[in-house]
């Protein structure tokens, strides 16, 4: 006998109801097949035998208020019908989810407490779509989030509240890194004089260099004799740095209106020890120092990084290192100020982690002498 037949014969017997009670005390009855679509209600009925009458109404979790319950039941009523096509379900979902953010959040909460995973997924996706592509300010406004992180908290490393051994190790690595940089600074002072000698020979290569992009020049450099290499790279570096400064200035202006770089303006001024800011777009030089500490931390064989960095960059890096070391030595508040103002212009530079600073120095000296 089909269900339809049965309904004709005994209509009152066909429909059975489940009694539900929301946190505010109101009780209502809902068709069984609709209510049983929710795993939590299903569990209560089957495992505990609740919901069969008004006295034994299933008490729903506090997060489910009557308005949300009615929405959830609408959802269940539609989806529990087996014959619907995927297209139908999808278009129902799209219409269903059109509501203000406030109700979306409440609905997510209610669906979660009833363990109705498909609805949780649906609302979560909708909330994700709202968040996607917005600046932090916009997101805070939409969801009424308190802006309760201080400027320093946004910049400073995560407080070592749980005394995470990884964070302690990191701090130790930073200290080591700082020491190395100080040493490099000393070396830099020695080398500065020698480099100036090569400037003059650059003039005749000006026309060639000015027309090319970085890669081609570099290739040309490698093909040529070593003596010219340094000077060419220097020239190229200077040009590149100027270009970058102007493009980064432009970018900085553009970035202010974009979402991910709304983040940048806050976290741009990173500090040694500051860890978690994602480098979206231009990142500060300081960040990259620690970045390489991370790379090292991950136990990769970083020994060949140095080989990959062409000599052209090394020149530029040394200059950056000098700045960095100087900044490290100044006081914290002053440093903060400086960083905040300089932060916009910095371009990301890969600072190779070379444990053996002396090797580098040797090879540079060798190049210069040739």
């Amino acid at each position, binding site marked *: 006998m089909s269900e339809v037949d049965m309904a004709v014969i005994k209509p009152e017997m066909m429909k059975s109801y489940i009694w539900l009670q929301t946190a505010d005390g109101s009780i209502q009855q809902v068709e069984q097949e609709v209510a049983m679509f929710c795993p939590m209600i299903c569990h209560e009925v089957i495992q505990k035998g609740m919901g069969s009458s008004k006295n034994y109404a299933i008490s729903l979790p506090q997060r489910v208020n009557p308005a949300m319950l009615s929405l959830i039941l609408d959802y269940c009523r539609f989806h529990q019908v087996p014959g619907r096509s995927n297209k139908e379900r999808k278009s129902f979902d799209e219409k269903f989810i059109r509501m203000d953010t406030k109700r979306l959040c409440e609905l997510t909460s209610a669906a979660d407490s009833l363990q109705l995973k498909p609805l949780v997924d649906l609302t979560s996706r909708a909330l*994700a779509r709202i968040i996607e592509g917005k600046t932090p300010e916009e997101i805070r406004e939409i969801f009424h989030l308190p802006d309760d992180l201080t400027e320093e908290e*946004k910049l400073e490393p995560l407080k070592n509240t749980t005394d995470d051994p990884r964070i302690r190790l990191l701090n130790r690595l930073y200290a080591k890194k700082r020491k190395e940089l100080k040493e490099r600074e000393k070396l830099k002072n020695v080398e500065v004089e020698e480099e100036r000698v090569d400037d003059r020979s650059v003039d005749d290569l000006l026309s060639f260099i000015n027309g090319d992009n970085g890669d081609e020049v570099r290739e040309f450099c490698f093909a040529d004799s070593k003596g010219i290499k340094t000077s060419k790279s220097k020239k190229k570096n200077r040009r590149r740095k100027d270009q970058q400064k102007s493009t980064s200035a432009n970018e900085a202006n553009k970035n202010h209106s974009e979402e*991910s770089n709304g983040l940048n303006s806050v976290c741009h001024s990173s500090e040694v020890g500051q860890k978690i800011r994602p480098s979206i777009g231009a990142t500060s030089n300081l960040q990259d120092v620690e970045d390489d500490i991370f790379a090292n931390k991950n136990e990769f064989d970083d020994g060949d990084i140095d080989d990959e960095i062409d000599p052209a960059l090394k020149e530029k890096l040394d200059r950056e290192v000098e700045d960095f070391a100087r900044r490290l030595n100044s006081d914290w508040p002053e440093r903060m100020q400086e960083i905040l103002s300089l932060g916009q212009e910095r371009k990301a530079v890969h600072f190779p982690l070379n444990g053996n600073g002396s090797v580098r120095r040797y090879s540079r000296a060798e190049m210069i002498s040739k």
Partner: protein
Amino acid sequence: MAKQARMEGVDRISNLPDPILSHILSFLPTKEAVATSILSTRWSKIFSQISNLNLDDHCKRRKSDSYSFMNFVDRVLFYRIGVVDKFHLKCGDSIDSYRVDGWIRYALLNRVRELDLCLKVKELNMVPLGVFTCKTLEVLRLDIYSKSNIVLKLPVEICYPSLKILHLSGIEFSDDDSIQRLFSGCSVLEELVVDRCNLKHRCKFNVSSPTLQRLTIAYTKGYYQDYEIVIDAPSLVYFKCCHLPKSFLLKNLNSLVEACVDFGTVFDCYDSFVYYNKAATDLFKGISNVQSLHLSGIFAEVFLQVSNIIPELPKLTYLNLDGYFFVGWERVLPDLLACFPGLEALVFKVNQHYSCDISRVKFPAKAFPAFLWSQLRTFKILSFKGQKNEFQMVEYFLEYAQVLENFTVQTRERKQDAANWRSKITKKLSKLQKVSKKCKVWVV
């Protein structure tokens, strides 16, 4: 002003429990998810719990951008806690391969369930061998884009106790043995897609799996297509094959419901016809239980002898035909449809003719099989251009199909005046005589 409004509103979203917040963030690209860490104190730690990592370098070529990306990923992974559910990585050559290797290892160590790698590289040295022995992996997608062939280096021991879905794209299999090792290591495989892969000369592509339900072998290049496909899959429900190999051996495809075959180009030459003929007959012999069939390809004159290639498929009820017939579909259709005695639904795409003498062919070139008229319920024409022979076909079908219920005409895309043209066709079609009373004509 904004601050005031913010103070007045209630922060409801932060009341959601941590798992829900990280679930919401898992739908965002990882970059944006991490950016939420500065929203408020409540949000500052949520990102570290997200289990979906969606990393994309957006094809940035500049060294500085690559470094930014690499450093970003390092930091995200470093600060994460918990298992990795989905790890999706898309990057190119500008990303250091040893770092990519490390990231993948991180995912493997953290019990990754779904690994999706889309790599545009010159050589494949960033996929650790651990990928092929990962116990928790359920979905693996390896999508390689490269100018030269990249050989997939497989370890001797391949063990995939949980792998259900495997997609391989753009790689080369070094030998039969490695193919064998790979597929025999997947004991619960349900879906396999092999796409744009290279098979060496005289290679045997052997897939034998009791659990496999969906199989796609597409655009696989063999050396002069001189390779063999052997499939033994009793649970197979869906089979798709683009471009036929030299020989097919399909065993035990008892559960097969749907098959899609793209013949590619069947050249008008006796030698290739013979070879194609054999592969095609083997294929159709293997899928003889199929209920739904999609056929596509460029068919030369030899296809006139359709019965040589396609045998009778008794259980077939749905046919989707998208072919370019050198001799015109008017001449091929009657013979083709005669192979499907159970046919109830036909979807036919009208494609451009290659032959010149088509105008002289009057529809129908020969009689359609009689069983068709008492069985055909659904008929859909795609890319309808309104030409004379197309109208002749429509007229013919409407006149003879006694149980036709749904007749749909999808007009070819027109830039100008589309609605007008459609209504013209609708008018013309509605004037035609319909033998079936229940028949509804739709023009879309």
